[in-house]
């Protein structure tokens, strides 16, 4: 695949892609975990890293290496749900608003603006408190998705607005093409890079927000995620007691995840800029 | 009179592109011989993608990758001395530029700084090129220059985007003429302008030429503009010059079949007889036909045209052409 080969020349892409792959594999390892991460006292407590427990164990008697693999997997799942569902809201909204214009546009953009100006964090805190009992990976992902589409809808809409003024839009109208096909056939190829780049952005935003909410103890703390791992480490005073492996593992994993997602998104969006893309199709 | 001021010898300038690791060579300027004289307006005509803009870049010595000078020379005749441009260091070139030769690229926006008022652009330009001028003096000079060329003085207070396309183009050309260069090169200065505005631009070019008695090299695909302003015209096809003569001769008795098509395809007022375009499409400069590049479109094509490239010969006095149909002027036949 040429696209991948070209991207591979970019060092940022090379590094971030490798790290992400390693993290994904690590998350996948959780399926082969010898322990259930929700059960306490499976292993001896507070052991530093050793050949038996690669990243040590924590005060609840859980093996950190295997717990973290679950955490990575779950954080990924939350991020993916948030990212994909929010794209499923943002793209149709943006296309409808941008292409139809007029009243539709104003209503859609009023809604998205409302989502942008409300104090997101406070609302999230309230909502998580309300649904805390039934909170799982999916509900958290959905909750984040509801707040993660508005800005991207605006970005995509402005792209559609400019596409609408291009002559090929008129050719398509004269060819009898309806709204839906116009959006799918004519515009989607142009906004795909944008959708993809914003997807990655929203994923890292969701991971970050999950960590924040978890540290505040607002999510379901039985499910191991990067956030809840930090929460437990903090609440057992891991730093104070010198159990550095407990705290550092989720923190370093989060940092790796953030930076690699950020680099991935910036290198891809730079590369997939429609202008350079057209040049390549034309070459 | 009629001394050469700029000439080329076997000039070859190609774009060398790397696409997916595969090398592509665009033969934009392919063995061009030019001999441009002092005090004339020289027009270069041809279809889009025939290499005429690239030729101008080579003449103005603004060759930047992926464009490469493959072989041949561009020669400036500066104060009775001949200079091979490729041997000059960048400092000498910088001094020659604007002072000896100025180049107005296509799309005048790129010359004018979009975030500066025109008077600032002019002042900066004057101060950096004429030593010992104060800002006041520079401003007076700029105003005077603008007024002399018949442009409204209030444009000096505008930003480039506030001006109409035609005004911007004229201001850019005026800037190029500021240091009274011996040569002004203008790339498609009238393209995308309305006819009345176009006329204004041509008027300005003619005014400048008359005032400075210098040389203007004008590239446009609009034969009407050439007829109106050029003293001599060179016709370019697929990276080569195929014909060159005075405007009267090019329009009156063109020899090359391509030129004939080009002239005959132009609609004329008061004549509704059917006119034909040049058949086919211009060839790709990446993959040129063998022999004469025009042979696939030529109605008079012969066997030799398909295999051998015709030489660029002097067919009549002051009339050069590259076509197997035309023989060299041996006995001085009248044109």
């Amino acid at each position: 695949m040429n696209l991948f080969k070209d991207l591979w020349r970019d060092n940022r892409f090379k590094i971030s892609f490798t790290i992400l792959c390693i993290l994904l594999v690590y998350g996948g390892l959780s399926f082969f975990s010898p322990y259930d991460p929700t059960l306490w006292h499976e292993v001896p407590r507070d052991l530093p890293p050793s050949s038996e427990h690669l990243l040590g164990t924590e005060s609840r008697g859980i093996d950190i290496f295997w717990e973290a693999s679950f955490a990575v997997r779950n954080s990924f799942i939350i991020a993916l749900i948030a990212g994909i569902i929010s794209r499923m809201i943002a793209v149709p909204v943006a296309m409808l608003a941008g292409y139809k214009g007029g009243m539709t546009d104003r209503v859609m953009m009023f809604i998205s603006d409302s989502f942008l100006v409300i104090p997101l964090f406070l609302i999230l805190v309230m909502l998580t408190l309300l649904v805390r009992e039934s909170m799982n990976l999916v509900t958290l992902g959905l909750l984040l998705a509801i707040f993660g589409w508005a800005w991207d809808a605006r970005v995509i809409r402005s792209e559609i607005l400019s596409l609408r003024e291009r002559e090929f839009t008129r050719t398509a109208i004269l060819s009898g093409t309806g709204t839906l096909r116009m959006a799918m056939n004519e515009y989607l190829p142009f906004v795909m890079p944008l959708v993809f780049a914003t997807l990655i952005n929203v994923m890292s935003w969701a991971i970050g927000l999950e960590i924040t909410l978890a540290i505040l103890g607002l999510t379901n703390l039985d499910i191991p995620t990067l956030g809840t791992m930090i929460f437990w480490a903090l609440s057992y005073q891991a730093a104070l007691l010198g159990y550095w492996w407990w705290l550092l593992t989720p923190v370093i994993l989060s940092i790796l995840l953030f930076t690699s997602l950020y680099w991935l998104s910036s290198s891809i969006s730079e590369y997939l800029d429609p202008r350079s893309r057209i040049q390549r199709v034309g070459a | 009179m009629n001394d050469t001021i700029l000439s080329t010898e076997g000039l070859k300038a190609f774009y060398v592109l790397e696409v997916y690791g595969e090398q592509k060579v665009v033969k934009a300027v392919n063995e061009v011989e030019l001999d441009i004289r002092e005090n004339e307006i020289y027009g270069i005509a041809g279809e889009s993608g025939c290499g005429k803009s690239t030729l101008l870049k080579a003449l103005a010595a603004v060759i930047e990758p992926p464009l490469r000078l493959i072989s041949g020379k561009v020669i400036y005749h500066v104060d009775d001395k001949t200079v091979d441009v490729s041997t000059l260091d960048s400092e000498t070139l910088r001094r020659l530029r604007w002072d000896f030769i100025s180049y107005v690229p296509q799309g005048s926006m790129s010359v004018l700084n979009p975030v500066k008022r025109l008077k600032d652009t002019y002042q900066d330009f004057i101060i950096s090129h004429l030593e010992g001028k104060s800002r006041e003096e520079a401003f007076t000079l700029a105003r005077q220059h603008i007024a002399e060329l018949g442009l409204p003085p209030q444009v000096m207070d505008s930003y480039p985007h506030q001006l109409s396309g035609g005004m911007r183009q004229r201001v850019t050309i005026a800037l190029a003429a500021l240091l009274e260069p011996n040569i002004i090169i203008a790339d498609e200065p009238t393209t995308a302008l309305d006819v009345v505005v176009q006329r204004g631009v041509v008027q300005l070019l003619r005014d400048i030429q008359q005032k400075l008695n210098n040389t203007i090299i004008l590239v446009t695909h609009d034969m009407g503009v050439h007829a109106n302003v050029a003293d001599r015209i060179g016709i370019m096809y697929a990276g080569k010059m195929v014909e060159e003569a005075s405007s009267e001769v090019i329009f009156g008795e063109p020899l090359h079949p391509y030129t004939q098509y080009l002239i005959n395809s132009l609609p004329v007022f008061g004549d509704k007889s059917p006119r034909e375009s040049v058949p086919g499409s211009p060839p790709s400069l990446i993959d040129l036909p063998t022999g004469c590049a025009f042979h696939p479109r030529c109605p008079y094509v012969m066997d030799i045209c398909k295999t051998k490239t015709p030489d660029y010969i002097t067919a009549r006095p002051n009339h050069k052409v590259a076509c197997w149909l035309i023989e060299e002027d041996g006995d001085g036949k009248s044109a």
Partner: protein
Amino acid sequence: MEKVLNVEHLSKVYSIGSITSRVRITAVDDISFTIRPGEIFALAGESGCGKTTTAKMVLGFEKPTAGTIEHKGQVSGENDKVWLTEGVQAIFQDPFGTFNPLRTVDRYFFETVQNYNLADNKEGAIELIDQKLRSVGLTYKEFAGKYPSEFSGGQLQRISIARALLTDPTLLIADEPVSMVDASLRMSIVNLFNKLRTELGMSVLYITHDLATAYYVCDRIAIMFRGNIVEMGSVEEVLMHPKHPYTQLLRESIPEADPARRWVGRVNLNETEEEEYLRKGCKFAGRCPVAMDVCKQKPPADIAVGDVLVKCYQFAEDMVPEHA
């Protein structure tokens, strides 16, 4: 008389600027014209004269502020879908912008065939497409599966015409179809209009700034200036014996391909478009060599001079009572 297109008192007003300093620009100012079957009609003028806005309104891409556009008894805006399928098609200025650069060109053809039910199956569609392509000098084989960038501008413009022909329109609207095509290839497009007219009886609304090709191919012409039609009549009359001072200036400013007939005299360019649009009287009064006092106060009416309509006070005096 039968009319393919009947435009009456069409106006379009745009408000520009901020809320505090709003300026209303009448881009199209009460224009009327008709196109007859098998006629090539030119709407000519410089950029910003309103000709493209008129085309957009005729195609239904813009809503008129006032006036009606009628095609075969159908009034525009009443039923958008019918309006277009009934046989008005269009081609545009930029051949490279006409088709999406990320899609193959043939997709537009198949979509047109499918959306208007022009063929029963794929074979039928290909046959129809091939037939239309052949009428513009191309074939299905040399075009299938290619992206716009693989064609030259002239080819794309012909492909664009072929696509428009799929629905067998009675009126083709061509918005500056040759301005971005090489002069050497323009005739191949313009000649096509003539061919379509003689072979299919199609009418063409040819919108252009190029008076020379308009003269060559059109029957009648309307010259627009700042939203008004200032002169309208047969190309022979309007372009060979222009009456309105603006038509005269325009006609004179066209560079003729003859070094013996170079421009003499100078042009005055120092008025801005906005100034002219906001002028109360005749919009050309600021540049007109024969402007009178009345020109600056009240816009002139259309005055019939022979078969030509002219918007100029020069012809007003004793003509008004008879014709107006």
